[in-house]
């Protein structure tokens, strides 16, 4: 009996030993583009930001639920609605062994560095929206006070302070433009070399404030998805975090680990100022005539898609509202046709297509060259054609699509592929964003009111109510026909553990994660 127990304990012990984090090894990650890793010129380039997360410390981390967690700042408080005080971690050192800080001659990260980085990020194309920040000052070496011009509910969002990387002023000033190639931060890895469009080689920062398991990390540019898949299968890379859903399914069968890294919104958008889409009845009718579930089922694997009833995905908890919005969507082609008839569209010449004043009801659905979207749109266009609407799918270059949407030169009905982050609803539908991110040219004082109030409401529950009310009006106005939230996926070798890319960027060492490779 004792022998059996011993054997069981031994096996259990082996199991635990097998699961324990191991140190060493270099993690190789596929990148699509590597351009510039200056902490404050990253715009929205996912790969560069992922490298930046390894080189710099952010002021705060965001977890899988996009909730703020300590990083360089160990705690923070709001004495009033427009004041934020951040308390910094003691003893965090900038990386040494470089031309700015020779070996053993580094210095501690202080509140002055945070203030400098904040103002620098405001000035440069950092991709951070810091317009609400009125001032920042160092109260003492470990305390920063940030004042906002108005209460900003999203100050800790991923596009604001949630991704503010801290840099040393002397490195920026000494290196000049070369700071984008040889940056110095206080992150878990130091830059060994960075060759744009080729690779970034990083090695462990031995003085990091957390233990780091990996010896190093390499980001390697592989533009072609087929080549990348073969490189993953051959073991030449360990992580490919830009795979399409079809590849994800195949790789899962081969034993690779599939990680979900976020949702992106897909829908049909209207320029509501362009005829015939300036008529609510037309937009409403079209939404009733589409069998969206059938189109999605035909194209996307169930594991990688969530039906959308609004613009906010499950990763935006203050706006995700399927229960509230689903009843607003009804597949009822007969009623849709009646609405169109009421709007004056009927088949007067017997050619099988609806017309009005001698003009056929023609929809040119403008779409990006995105394989899955094109397939879904083709099915939807076919459905509309069978109901007497001359619907066509127009595949255009990304720049042309963007330009058409922004200038309003396009057909007025388009593939809505948009930012689905915490403030996405504001960007897409607030009237002040017309001409920039509000490509629907939508103007509704009620929506503006609820969004403005929500943006300044720090209480989560109240903010959520306001956000959902604004979203409901947008859906009732049929500015969009929400289709689906597509899950973005990444694949890794089963030997790679404890990393995450939720929210769109790879994190390897945080207080909650510490990536390691099984030997």
């Amino acid at each position, binding site marked *: 009996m004792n022998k059996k127990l011993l054997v069981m304990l031994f096996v259990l012990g082996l199991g635990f030993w097998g699961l324990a984090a191991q140190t060493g090894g270099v993690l190789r990650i596929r990148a699509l583009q590597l*351009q*510039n890793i200056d902490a404050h010129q990253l715009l*929205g380039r996912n790969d560069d930001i992922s490298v930046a997360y390894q080189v710099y410390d952010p002021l705060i981390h965001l977890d899988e639920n996009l909730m703020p967690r300590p990083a360089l700042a160990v705690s923070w408080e709001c004495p009033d609605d427009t004041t934020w005080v951040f308390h910094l971690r003691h003893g965090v050192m900038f990386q040494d062994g470089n031309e700015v800080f020779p070996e053993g001659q580094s210095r501690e990260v202080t509140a002055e560095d945070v203030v400098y980085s904040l103002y620098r990020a405001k000035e440069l194309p950092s991709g951070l929206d810091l317009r609400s920040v009125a001032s920042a000052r160092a109260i003492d070496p470990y305390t920063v006070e940030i004042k906002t011009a108005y209460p900003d509910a999203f100050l800790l969002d991923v596009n604001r302070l949630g991704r503010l990387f801290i840099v040393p002023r002397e490195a920026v000033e000494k290196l000049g433009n070369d700071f*984008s190639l040889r940056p110095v931060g206080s992150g878990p890895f130091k830059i060994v070399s960075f*060759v744009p*469009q080729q690779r970034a080689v990083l090695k462990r920062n031995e003085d990091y404030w957390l233990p780091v398991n990996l010896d190093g990390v390499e980001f390697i540019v592989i533009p072609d998805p087929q080549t990348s898949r*073969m490189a993953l299968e051959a073991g030449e890379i360990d992580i490919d975090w830009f795979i399409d859903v079809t590849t994800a399914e195949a790789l899962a069968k081969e034993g690779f680990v599939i990680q979900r890294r976020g949702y992106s919104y897909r829908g049909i958008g209207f320029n509501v100022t362009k005829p015939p889409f300036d008529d609510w009845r037309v937009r409403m009718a079209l939404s009733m005539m589409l069998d969206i579930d059938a189109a999605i089922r035909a194209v996307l694997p169930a594991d990688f898609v969530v039906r959308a009833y609004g613009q906010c995905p499950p990763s935006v908890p203050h706006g995700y509202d399927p229960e509230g919005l689903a009843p607003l969507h009804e597949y009822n082609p007969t009623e849709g046709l009646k609405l169109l008839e009421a709007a004056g569209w009927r088949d007067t010449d017997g050619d099988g297509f609806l017309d009005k004043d001698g003009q056929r009801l023609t929809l040119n659905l403008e779409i990006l060259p995105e394989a899955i979207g094109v397939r879904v749109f083709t099915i939807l266009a076919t459905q509309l054609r069978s109901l007497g609407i001359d619907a066509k799918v127009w595949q255009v270059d990304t720049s042309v699509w963007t330009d058409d949407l922004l200038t309003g030169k396009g057909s007025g009905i388009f593939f809505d592929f948009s930012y689905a982050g915490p403030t996405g609803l504001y960007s897409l539908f607030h009237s002040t964003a017309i001409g920039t991110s509000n490509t629907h040219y939508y103007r509704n004082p009620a929506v503006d009111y609820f969004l403005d109030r929500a943006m300044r409401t720090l209480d989560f529950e109240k903010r959520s109510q306001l956000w959902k009310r604004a979203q409901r009006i947008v859906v009732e106005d049929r500015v969009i026909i929400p289709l689906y939230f597509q899950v973005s996926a990444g694949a890794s070798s089963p030997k790679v553990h404890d990393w995450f890319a939720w929210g769109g960027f790879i994190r390897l060492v945080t207080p909650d994660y510490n990536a390691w490779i099984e030997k």
Partner: protein
Amino acid sequence: MFTMLNYIIRRLLIGLFTLICITFIVFALVSLAPGDPIRLMLASERINPELAQRMIQYYKLDQPWYMRYGAYLFSLLHGDLGYSLTTRNKVSLSIARAFPNTVLLTCASMGVAILIAIPLGIIAAAYRNTLADYSALVAALIGVSMPNFWLGLMLILIFGLRLKWLPIFGIGRLERGLMDVISHLILPSITLGSGLAGLLMRLTRSALLDVLGMEYIRTARAKGVAESQVLIKHSFRNAMIPVLTTAGLQFGSLLGGAMIVETIFAWPGMGRLAIQAVQERDFPVIQGTTLVFAASFIVVTLIVDLLYAVIDPRIRYE
């Protein structure tokens, strides 16, 4: 000697004029095409409007394109290709990184093509209408017909994934030794060189057959010159003019980058740099890459023209 120098100077001046024309055409086309990078950034909420406005002013995007062209030409004459709109790095730096990689791949591909095409072309011509000739012609046809992307992926699949003999992607690093660079070069250069080999082999064969039918060859044979001598010494050199012309033009084209092969093999060359710039409407990079491409082509064609005189001393530049 002076005649030759005059010729070179004249050609270089024509080349300079051509370059200016190309910069004008490209600038106008890019400026008139829809979309600009600042708008792309604005649409994706990655930049605030005040900063966008500053960038628009900095890059003079608020000015008419012909005025911007004047400023561009002025900077160009001072050796300044400008800064990338997306990366904010110097365009000259991006080109300086990509161009040597492209030259390396082009030379290797041309080497592969010549090594295959010339011997096969000579054999095919020497043994006209035999099994060797037909086999060479079929091989050439296969080489020309196979799409680059398919051949590249197949080579990766066989030699990279299955046999694991060669690396799948990338350019290799000199610090890991010369073999690392060579091993990374093999698959992309075979992919790029195979199509070219087919073309050059057929040209070599037909040019040689033309020469072999000439009177002086018949005379040489009548005088009892060995067939190998006839083929190599008397015919081959004279048959090289059309082969050299085509090879030169292809070499010049390849210096502009081979987008598909560079993408498949993650080869960081001019093709990828240019196509990415076009996608992002990065005007300064588009201008810079086009300029380098055109200049390389002009220089290569000039060198080819000069080589004619080396191959055939009867050719004089007057």
